[in-house]
Each structure stands twice: as C-alpha cells, then as structure tokens.
C-alpha cells in the first residue's frame, strides 16, 4: 500500500506539473475572464455616442413612403433621385441608401446600395427598412399599436412547469446546454491530454528501461493502480478547480452579457454527476492507455493506437446538434451506457432533457464495471507484454499471453 502511495504521489505530481495540464486547467477561468474583459473593452470602444446617428438614404419612386423615418439612432432621409442618393453616399452624407422602385408593390423588391463590403445585410438595417416599409404600407388601415405589434419580432416568454404545476426550478432554456457543452468539451480535451501524458510517461519508462527498475521494486499491479489513480486524481482536481470557479464566472458573464447567459444554472446534481463521470472517465481512459502502452513497442505507436478510443470521446459532440432536436431518441441512451462515450453523452443529455435516474445509474454501473474489469485486463496485458521492446505482439500472441499472465 505504501509503495502504491509513493508511486501515486510521484505520478500525480508529475501529471499536475505538466505544462499541458497547467495550461488546460488555468485556461478555462482565465479565458472566460479574458473573454468578459475583451467584451467589455470592445463594447466601450465601439459603443456609439448618444449624439451619433446613422443616416440611411432612400429614394421613394412609389411616392407613399414618408412616415416613421426615425428608428432609434437610425434616421432615414429621402432623396429625389437615385443620382442624388448616390452623390450623398459617395460624399458620405449617408451610410447607404435604398430605392423603392415603382413596381415594388407588385414585385416586392427594393434595391440597396452601399460602399461597404459585406456578406449579408446587417440585421439592424433589415429590421429598420422592413419596419419603415410596413409602417407606411399599413398606416392608413391600422392603428399605430397594431402596426407596432406586427413589425416587432415575436417575443415569447416560455415557462416550464413541473409535474405539480409549479414553476420548475430548471427552466430548460438554451442557456442550460452551454455549461454541459463546455464541460463535455473540456472533459474530452482533458481526457485526451491525460491519455497522451500517461502514454508518454509510460513510453519513457519503457524505452529507458526505468520500468524494469520500478518492477524490481514493486509489482505490476501496484504500479498500474498507482499510475491510474494518480491520473484520475489529477483529472478530479482539474474538474474541481473548474467547478469552483464556474459559479463566479457565470455570475460575471451573466452580469456582463446578460441575455440567455442569465438562464445558466449549475444544479447540484449536475456538479456531482460531473465529478463522478469525470473521475470514472479519467480512470477508464488511464486504464486503456496503460494497456495500449503495454502492448506498443514505442510511444508514437501507442499514441496512434490510443486515437481509436480517444476519437470515441468526440462522438457525442459530433451528434450534439441532432440530440438537441431529437432528445428522446434511444440512440442517446445507448451512447450513455457505452463506457467510452458515457461521460460526455450523459453530461450533454443533462443539459438538453431530463435523463431518467435509472439510465444514469446503469451508465455509472457500466462505467464502474468497465474500470474494474479494465484494470484486471490491463494488469494481465502489461505483465505479458511489458518487456517486449521494438515489436508489437500479434493477436495470437496477445491471447496466448493473457492465458498465462498472472493478475
């Protein structure tokens, strides 16, 4: 036990001192703070002064568009002809202009002219022009309140009720997917980094024969348990740092950006499940990595082989869009119990829909079982192939090796 602790301590310190680990751990809070700071700075720099008004010119060839020419800081100015409007545009008297042609009422097309190079018309401009046109078309038949209602975009406030008819604590708005999505992405990167780090370390020990020195002091079981738990603990520490900083960062982001960010919540069950899945995910991927490290002849070969299971991490993220549209599809349950996708899949599902408790329990149970069986299997593989240098065993050799290797 003492030797397991000694190796654990060494491996844990090596893991958390790694540059990649430090960068990834600190980058989340630092990047969020930098993002908020940048947003504030940009807002201050580009925020137009109250006196600053944008003038858009227009040429009304129909002759019925003249009312409601002021929309906040945007003012519409009429020109008699296209030539006059073009002259004003070239002289920068207007930022752009549009022409309402004679056949507008039958064709519904207006022509917009600008000096700016742009992919699409800015939404604000579209909204202002559409409001202006609608208002003038409807002004003789409808009251101003009705016209305002028509031209204003639909503003729908949705409230989710629980089964007792009370307002649910989790409202399930778009903000709810943000944290699970970021968490899933970070978990993927963190597992990928941890996997690489473990394989690199193991490869260094194998190639330098330090592994033999270690195994002349401890058993394979002690060595692997220590390595796997050290990496799992490093992962756990990482997620705890993120989770501790998350409420503060969310509060900061919400007060800065507002909007849907105000809807973001961090329920306790999400935090607890996050810790459970992060830890189990780390343990499982660490076990897979030592297994791959055991049968590989060098580091680069091990890293190539590890891509097979590392890629599985990203499967739930690839299909996240479909899952948001079809959250009840049974495929998501299957991905939730498949050990390699379960940590990411469940975290994502928690942000999209209610995940039945039994599914979470099955998922965690399968993961725990995978970790236990994986560790048993990896110890046997490692014992059988740890000292094979420069050659990778074939399938027949692996099967034979496993038959005779001890636990």
């Amino acid at each position: 036990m003492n030797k397991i602790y000694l190796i654990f301590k060494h491996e844990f310190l090596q893991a958390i001192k790694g540059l990649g680990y430090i960068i990834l751990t600190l980058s989340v809070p630092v990047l969020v703070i930098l993002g908020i700071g940048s947003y504030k700075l940009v807002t201050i720099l580009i925020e137009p002064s109250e006196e600053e008004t944008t003038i858009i010119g227009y040429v009304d060839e129909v002759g019925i568009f003249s009312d409601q020419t002021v929309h906040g800081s945007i003012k519409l100015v009429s020109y008699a002809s296209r030539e006059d409007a073009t002259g004003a545009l070239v002289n920068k008297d207007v930022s752009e202009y549009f022409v309402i042609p004679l056949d507008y009422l039958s064709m519904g097309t207006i022509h917009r002219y600008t000096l700016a190079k742009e992919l699409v018309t800015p939404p604000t401009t579209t909204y202002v022009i559409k409001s202006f046109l609608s208002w003038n078309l409807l002004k003789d038949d409808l009251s101003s309140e009705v016209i305002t209602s028509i031209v204003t975009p639909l503003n729908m406030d949705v409230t989710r009720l629980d089964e007792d008819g009370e307002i649910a604590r989790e409202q399930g708005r778009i903000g709810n997917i943000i944290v699970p999505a970021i968490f899933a992405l970070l978990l993927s990167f963190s597992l990928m980094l941890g996997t690489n780090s473990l394989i690199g370390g193991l490869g260094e020990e194998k190639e330098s024969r330090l592994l033999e020195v270690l195994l002349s002091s401890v058993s394979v079981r002690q060595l692997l348990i220590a390595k796997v738990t050290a990496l799992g603990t490093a992962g756990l520490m990482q997620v705890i740092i993120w989770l501790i900083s998350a409420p503060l960062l969310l509060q900061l982001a919400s007060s800065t950006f507002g909007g849907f960010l105000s809807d973001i919540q961090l329920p306790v069950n999400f935090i607890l499940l996050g810790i459970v899945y992060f830890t189990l995910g780390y343990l499982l991927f660490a076990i897979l990595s030592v297994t791959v490290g055991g049968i590989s002849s060098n580091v680069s070969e091990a890293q190539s082989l590890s891509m097979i299971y590392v890629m599985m991490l990203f499967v739930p993220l690839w299909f996240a869009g479909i899952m948001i549209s079809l959250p009840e599809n049974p495929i998501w349950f299957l991905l939730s119990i498949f050990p390699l996708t379960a940590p990411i899949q469940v975290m994502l599902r928690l942000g999209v829909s209610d995940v039945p408790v039994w599914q979470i329990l099955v998922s965690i149970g399968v993961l725990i079982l995978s970790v236990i069986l994986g560790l048993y299997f990896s110890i046997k593989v490692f014992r059988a192939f740890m000292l094979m240098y420069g050659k990778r065993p074939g399938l027949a050799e692996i099967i034979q090796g496993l038959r005779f290797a001890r636990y």
Partner: protein
Amino acid sequence: MKVVEVDHLSKSYADVVAVNDLTFSVSSGEILGLIGPNGAGKSSTIKIILDFMKPDSGEVRIFDQQMNEAIKDRIGYLPEERGLYKRLTAIDLILYLASLKGMDKATAEKKANILLEKTGMLEHKNKKNKEMSRGMGQLIQFIVTVIHDPDLVILDEPFSGLDPVRTETVQNIIAQLRDEGKAVILSTHQMNRVEELCDRVLMIDKGRSILYGDIMETRTKFRRNSVQVVIDGELGDLPGVIDRKVKSDYIELVLAPDTSSQTILDQLRESGTTVNRFEVTTPSLNEVFLHLVKVDHE
C-alpha cells in the same frame, strides 16, 4: 549461503530458445560473471530471475524462496540499457527510487550523499537528468541500484559508456559489495573486468551453459602446453619445443605433449641464456570464451 539458485531453467520465444536448461547458483560474498555473446540468453536469464517473465520450465529461488514482493527490497538491479526521468534532478530520482525500496528519506539522503561523493557526482546532484551526460546518468543509476544496501545485486553491463576513471570507481564499489557479503551477478562483455572482479563465471551460448566454474580453475583448465619467454640473444635448439611463435615482446614456445615447462627452463639455464621472463601460458578468459564459443558453434 546461497542467495540465488537457478535450477534447470528454460525459456523459449516462438521458435527461439532463449534459455536452455540452465543451472547455477550465487552465494553471499561472491561475484558471478555472466558472460556470453549477444543474444546468448543473459538478459532473459536475468529477467526470469527478477520474475519479469515466467520460465517455461525450471525454478528460481532467491533467499531460499520464490520471488515475492517482500524480497524485492533486498535486490538491486541495474538494467543493460538505461535512462532516467529527464525532468527530475539526480537527487530526486535517487530518493524516489530509494523510497520504493523501503528507505526513509533521511537515511536515503545520507546514503545518497555518500555514494554521490564516492562517485564524484555530489556537485551534480541538483542537476536535472536531461542535463547530464550518458556516463553521469549511468553513475546515478548505479547509485540507485546499490543505495538500499541490497543483499543481491544484479548488474547488466554496468561499465558500458563509462570512462576509465568512472569504470574504476564502479569496479571498486562492486568489489566492496562482495567484501561486505553481498551476492553479485555481473553480466558483461568486458572479460577483463570479469577476470579482475569475479570469483566464478558462467558462460552461456544459445541459452546453454558452456562453462561454469571458478575463474582461476577455468583458466588453468584451459592452459595450453606452452611458455612465454623473453631472453637476451638467440634461442638455440630446444628439444621438446614443437613450435615457436614470435610475438612483439615475447616468444611463445609450444611444447610437445610429454615436455614440461620445467624441462625448458632447465635447458635455457644450462645453455647459459639470460632469461628475462619465463611464464607458463595461461589463456585469458577472453581466449577461453572465444575458444568455447567456436567449439560450440562447430
């Protein structure tokens, strides 16, 4: 007291026989030289002794028991190819690996400083391993191997990559280990080191033992019936000498089977020749090794 007992050990990989019915033992206060050409099965034998791999047949007993976790602390092992954790300092590496051998930090630090000083590495103890030369790294690993005062020391090519001064230092420490009653298995290609250090030798080729015994007895056993002489003037006719081999600094006289070296010495003295050197030719271990390997291959 026998520390290692290897009994009819065999191990094959696919079609290759790595170790073939090998039997030997190593006792306390003894250095056993394990020699053989590349691929002879030396490293495989060591790995089986250390329980890194299982033999197909045969048995290894260490301290009169099968390998277990408890006796690992009494073993020091230096592998043939060596490396270090590049990011650790020399002292951190030594203390970490010493802790795995059950040493407490204070004792390990004290012993480490003694060994670092003895090997001339004290001033480098806070250097990171990646900043060290190959030879310096080897000394650090050697220190790691012996720091916990093991009763059994297994050294696989301990001198490779070391300069003559460091080789001498390591050689002295190994001799000291023997004097302290440790059992040492020394696997090396450097026959002169085996001759100088070892009490007994085990020569293996293709996994088989081709020679096992006391170094001096072995050399005597393979002694050729010839003498090496250095004289003033010319050698006259010497009855009983069937061949003369003129070397750069001596002449080797090959004697007839029924002629003794004493007869030749008497003849030289009687002829009034000034004899500056007269030595019965004893083959070096290297010559014995080459001879046996050649015979084995034939």
